[in-house]
Structures are given as structure tokens and as C-alpha cells.
């Protein structure tokens, strides 16, 4: 089995299932009908509701859902072996993840562009909408913490990457000024930005930044506060713009390289059922894999993003499939590229870092052996820059093998890729986190009295959320934070999927078979995550804060299940508190 065959296999599986399962969803469940005007038309306001060309919308949606997560998760999940990872990335995506994304967009389209959070609130209980809020908050807070930790690991192992990332911030700011203040022609400005980016890469290698872990934590905290206080034209917008070039290039180059290289898979396809991943303890494939591979296979946040903005811009109902379902599959492709790359070249990276590995008691050559890999993978990557580090270096080797370019180039480029996206996640995440923080405390205003006033005080409300994330990240355990993030994210996905399942059941005249299948997948997902959370609580050593979050998630998951079943049993929409005015 080599990389070409594997990637092509993945592409074929995705394509076939898109055409077969995806289309049957569109035809028999959603019953996408182009004669039904979408909210982009019925509520057109040229601001939020604007019909958009499907290709442009696809690009926008894909760019929104593809951050650093589809890279981090699979890189961590390599501990189970690449077959294990790919199976979940492929079939989890096709049967659950892409379905989740697609149906949440379409449900939103049928509800005049209302978000899945709002729909859940109407279909079940008002507190269900609040549940979404809390899960979203937890997802964000933990994601930021996990990103901060992973990025710090990358920066510590590769100080030149750290330096380059900081220079890239400067480049982004200059580009922002070029395009916004100095009003340079757009094309010219873009080209200058790209050239400057290359300059940043070069500068990075000149003066590497050596800073301690705690130092990076402080820097990231300050960065989050400062970046989200700037006007968007100055940093966030130009960086995101430049990032999109990097993303496309990275994905396309990676896929093409894998197909050309035809490299052998050096690391194991299956290691063991329970390798040491989360918190260093044996982590059973079921129920833990969804907690590790989130974006790329299934992600609850996508439902909010899709039903929050994408659905309002859909021109025709039938276009939802390529945007929603197709978009998620494309992200799955990205994760496949990550997995296969590490599988084929990770061992080489480990061998080259044999010295560092022996320092932590690992024999690089033994990593070829499945069981050994399972036990020591996470510890091993810790020595080469964490999950981000193993990916970037494997990517470098891939580019070298496929195109004959020095491995440095590929590594540097992909490092810029992951760090740029991670930093953007931290910036946007912090902004949304501030809002989510206040939303979470809002319904508790009366019962909390003065405490509420303190917590939502303007200065505290902007500092606390990011401070919490950094606090979480303080103890360096990305292999604890990431699955905690996964838990919140996937429970959000389960809640979303159950909501759309309810919608499908009640409001679409879908075939019984489909409905049952979707319901079953949704239920299975809920159960999986639920068990996963319990497992996390009892098997994984972690800080009281994280455990507190997990307990909260378990409680909310139960409340949701209860509300869901009550909703299920009530036959009339009115009984479920459903207002006539919002019949889709």
C-alpha cells in the first residue's frame, strides 16, 4: 500500500459516496427543490442574505471550516495507526460528519436562515438553545487552549518557525496597510503580500526566537487580547486573505505530491486498540477516536458556521449539497493528506530525531513496530514539535520525495501554514469567546445578582475568557486538552445531528429508511461521545478545571437527551412548543 493508491482510494470513496449517499440525501430526505426560493432571495438584504455563486460559496464555507483542527486531530490520532484514522476520516465523514454539515445548512435554509441553535430552541425547549451556547463556549475555550499548547510545542522545537510566524504578522499588517490605507491596486497588493510572506520565511531562518513554554503562553495571551482589539483591516483580514493562498497551495501540493511520490507507508496501519494517547493512558478506539479526529471527520462547530452564515447565501437548494456535504468531504481530504503524509514519512522524521527521542527514552527504530508505536507515539511527537511538528516535517519530506525540493522548503511552508491558521483561530476565537462568555452568563443574571455584574464587566469579560484558555494550557497537556475540546465539539455535533434528525422526522416527507438511519447515526454519536466523556473523567489524569468542564458536558448531554426524547414523543408540533409561524 503506497501513498498514491491510498489517496486515490480516499478520493474515489468520497466521490462515490458523494454521488450515491449525498445525492440520495438531497433527493429523498431534504428533497432539494430549486423552485423553492431560498432565504438569500426571500430575505435578501444585500448584507447577510445575498445569493452567492456556489463555487464562491463553497470556497467561503470551506475556508471557514478548515483551520488548524483538521491537521492537529489526525496527527494525534496516528497513535492508532493510519488505517484506524482513515477509516474514521472516511466513513465517519461520509455517514455522519458531512451529513451533519449538509443537513444543518438545509434545515436552516428551510427555516428562513435561522441557525441550528435557534431551530433546536424551537423544536425542543428554550433551554436547548442555551445548551448550544454552553457547548459552543466550551468548545472554543478548549480549542484555543489546545491550539496554544500545540503551537508552543512547535515553536519550541523549531525556533525559526516561531520567528517566521512573528514576521508573518508584520507582513500581514503591512499588507493590510497596503490594501486598506494606502489603497494599492488589489492585484498588486496581493502579489506584494505574497512576496513579503516569502521574505518573512527567510527572515525567520535568520533570527530564530528561543522562548520558554511559559513565555509563549504569556505571549499568546497578550497576542489574543491585542489582536482582537485591532480593527480587522490591520491584521485579521489581510492574514486570513494570505492564509487562503497558503491553504490551497498546501492542500493541492500535498495531494499531488502524495500521488506522485508513491511512497510506502512506513508507520503501522493498526497499532493496537488502546494506544497511549489521551493523558498518556490507553485510549480505546471506541469511543475515543471521534474526540481526537474532529474537523476532518465530524465537527459540531461546522453546524453553527454553516447555519449561521452559509445558509443565508445559498442561491438554490440543490447547491447545498456541494457546499455542505462537498465542503466537509474536502476537509476530509485534507485530513487524509495529513494522515497519509505522516504515515509515509513520519518514521523518517523520527529516525532523524533519534537523538532527541533517546532523551525521552524512545528508540526511534522501534517505532516501526506497531505496539511500540501505539505506546510511544504521543511521547515521541512531543520531542519533535508536537502534533504540528510531526506533520510539518513529514510534509517537508513528502515534498522532497515528490518534487525533489529540499525538505526544508516543505517543512517551512507547512509550518507557516499551521501557525498562521492557529494564530488566526486564536484571534477570531477570542473575539467570539468574549461574546459567548456573556451569552453563557446572561440567563443566570437574576440568580447571580452582583456576581453577574462582576463577571461581565467590560474589562474582565474581555480578559477572562482568554485567560481561562491560557490557564488551561499552562500545564502543557495538548493530549488532554484536545480530546476535551473534541468532547465538547462532538457533543455539540450530536446535539445538532439529533436536532436535524428531529427535523427530518417531523418536517420532511423523507423515506422511513433514511430517517431511521440518520436517527441511528445521531443516537450512536451521542452515545459514543457520552461514553467517551465518562471514560475521560475516570481514566484520564487532568486538572480540576478540565474535569469540571467534562462534568458540565455530561450533565448538559443528559438534559439534552431528556428534552430530545420528550420532543420525540410529542406528536403535535404545538405540544413541543413549536410556533406555527415558523413552519418551514
Amino acid at each position, binding site marked *: 500500500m503506497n501513498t498514491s493508491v491510498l489517496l486515490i482510494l480516499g478520493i474515489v470513496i468520497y466521490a462515490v459516496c458523494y454521488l450515491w449517499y449525498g445525492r440520495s440525501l438531497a433527493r429523498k430526505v431534504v428533497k432539494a427543490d430549486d423552485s423553492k426560493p431560498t432565504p438569500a432571495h426571500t430575505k435578501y438584504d444585500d448584507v447577510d442574505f445575498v445569493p452567492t455563486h456556489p463555487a464562491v460559496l463553497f470556497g467561503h464555507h470551506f475556508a471557514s471550516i478548515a483551520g488548524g483542527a483538521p491537521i492537529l486531530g489526525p496527527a494525534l490520532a496516528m497513535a492508532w495507526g493510519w488505517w484506524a484514522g482513515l477509516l474514521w476520516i472516511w466513513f465517519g465523514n461520509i455517514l455522519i460528519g458531512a451529513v451533519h454539515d449538509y443537513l444543518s445548512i438545509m434545515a436552516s435554509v428551510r427555516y428562513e436562515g435561522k441557525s441550528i441553535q435557534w431551530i433546536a430552541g424551537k423544536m425542543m425547549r428554550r433551554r436547548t438553545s442555551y445548551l448550544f451556547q454552553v457547548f*459552543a463556549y466550551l468548545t472554543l475555550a478548549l480549542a484555543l487552549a489546545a491550539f496554544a499548547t500545540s503551537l508552543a510545542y512547535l515553536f519550541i522545537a523549531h525556533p525559526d518557525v516561531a520567528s517566521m510566524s512573528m514576521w508573518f504578522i508584520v507582513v500581514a499588517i503591512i499588507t493590510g496597510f497596503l490594501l486598506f490605507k494606502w489603497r494599492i491596486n488589489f492585484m498588486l497588493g496581493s502579489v506584494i503580500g505574497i512576496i513579503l510572506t516569502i521574505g518573512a520565511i527567510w527572515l525567520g531562518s535568520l533570527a530564530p526566537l528561543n522562548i520558554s513554554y511559559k513565555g509563549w503562553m504569556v505571549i499568546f495571551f497578550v497576542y489574543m487580547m491585542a489582536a482582537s482589539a485591532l480593527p480587522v483591516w490591520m491584521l485579521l483580514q489581510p492574514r486570513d486573505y494570505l492564509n487562503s493562498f497558503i491553504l490551497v497551495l498546501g492542500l493541492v501540493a500535498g495531494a499531488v505530491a502524495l500521488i506522485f511520490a508513491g511512497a510506502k507507508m512506513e508507520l503501522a496501519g493498526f497499532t493496537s486498540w488502546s494506544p497511549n494517547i489521551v493523558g498518556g493512558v490507553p485510549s480505546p478506539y471506541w469511543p475515543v477516536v471521534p474526540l481526537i479526529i474532529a474537523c476532518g471527520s465530524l465537527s459540531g462547530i461546522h453546524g453553527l458556521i454553516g447555519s449561521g452564515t452559509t445558509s443565508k447565501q445559498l442561491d438554490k437548494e440543490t447547491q447545498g449539497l456541494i457546499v455542505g456535504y462537498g465542503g466537509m468531504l474536502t476537509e476530509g481530504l485534507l485530513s487524509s493528506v495529513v494522515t497519509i503524509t505522516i504515515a509515509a514519512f513520519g518514521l523518517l522524521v523520527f529516525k532523524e530525531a533519534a537523538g532527541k527521542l533517546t532523551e525521552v527514552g524512545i528508540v526511534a527504530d522501534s517505532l516501526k513496530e506497531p505496539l511500540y508505536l501505539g505506546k510511544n507515539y504521543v511521547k515521541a511527537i512531543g520531542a519533535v514539535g508536537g502534533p504540528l511538528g510531526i506533520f510539518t516535517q513529514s510534509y517537508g519530506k513528502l515534498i522532497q520525495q515528490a518534487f525533489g525540493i529540499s525538505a526544508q522548503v516543505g517543512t517551512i511552508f507547512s509550518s507557516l501554514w499551521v501557525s498562521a491558521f492557529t494564530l488566526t483561530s486564536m484571534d477570531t476565537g477570542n473575539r467570539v469567546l468574549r461574546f459567548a462568555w456573556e451569552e453563557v452568563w446572561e440567563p443566570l443574571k437574576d440568580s447571580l445578582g452582583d456576581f453577574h455584574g462582576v463577571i461581565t464587566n467590560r474589562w474582565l469579560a474581555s480578559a477572562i475568557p482568554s485567560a481561562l484558555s491560557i490557564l488551561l494550557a499552562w500545564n502543557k497537556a495538548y493530549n488532554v486538552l484536545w480530546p476535551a475540546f473534541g468532547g465538547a465539539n462532538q457533543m455539540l455535533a450530536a446535539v445538532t445531528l439529533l436536532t436535524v434528525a428531529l427535523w427530518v422526522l417531523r418536517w420532511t416527507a423523507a423515506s422511513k429508511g433514511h430517517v431511521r438511519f440518520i436517527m441511528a447515526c445521531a443516537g450512536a454519536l451521542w452515545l459514543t461521545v457520552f461514553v467517551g466523556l465518562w471514560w475521560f473523567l475516570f481514566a484520564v489524569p487532568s486538572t480540576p478545571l478540565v474535569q469540571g468542564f467534562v462534568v458540565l458536558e455530561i450533565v448538559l448531554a443528559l438534559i439534552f437527551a431528556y428534552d430530545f426524547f420528550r420532543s420525540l414523543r410529542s406528536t403535535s408540533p404545538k405540544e413541543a412548543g413549536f410556533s406555527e409561524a415558523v413552519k418551514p
Partner: protein
Amino acid sequence: MSHWDILELLKTALRRQATEYVRAEVQALEEAFALLLVGTFIGLPAPTTGLVLRLLPHLGSELELLERRVAESDDLFAQVAGILKI
């Protein structure tokens, strides 16, 4: 699809990428502006009444904007979440 179409689409997509965040930001700024001026009629402390009165004839779109915002006010978070990149 013709060669030109793809190029056009690409250019559109690229330009969209370069303005997405600024769009979201200007929306927020416009809402702030509208609230500052018109919020007086829902009891918010406001510019001197006289100032509001003088600007009122020109604020048609601000009022519509606020009206829309009020209609969507029960579903804000997901829209906000649209700027995320995770």
C-alpha cells in the same frame, strides 16, 4: 464552463476572501452608529436631542438596519460564529 468563467469565479472568490472580515466589522460599526443615534427612542442615553432630530431625516437605512437586527436578535450567536476559523 468556459475558461473565462473560471477565472472570473476565482477572482471573485479571492476578492471575497479579502473583504469577509471587513464586511462583518462594518456591519457591527453601522449597528453601533444606528444605536447611538436612534437608541434614544428606546431609552438609551443619547446625543443631545437636537442633534438626533437634525440627523433623523437622513437615517432611513439606520432605522431599517435596527429593525432587521431586532428581528434577528434571538439568533445572533451563529452569525457571529461565522468569523471563526477552527
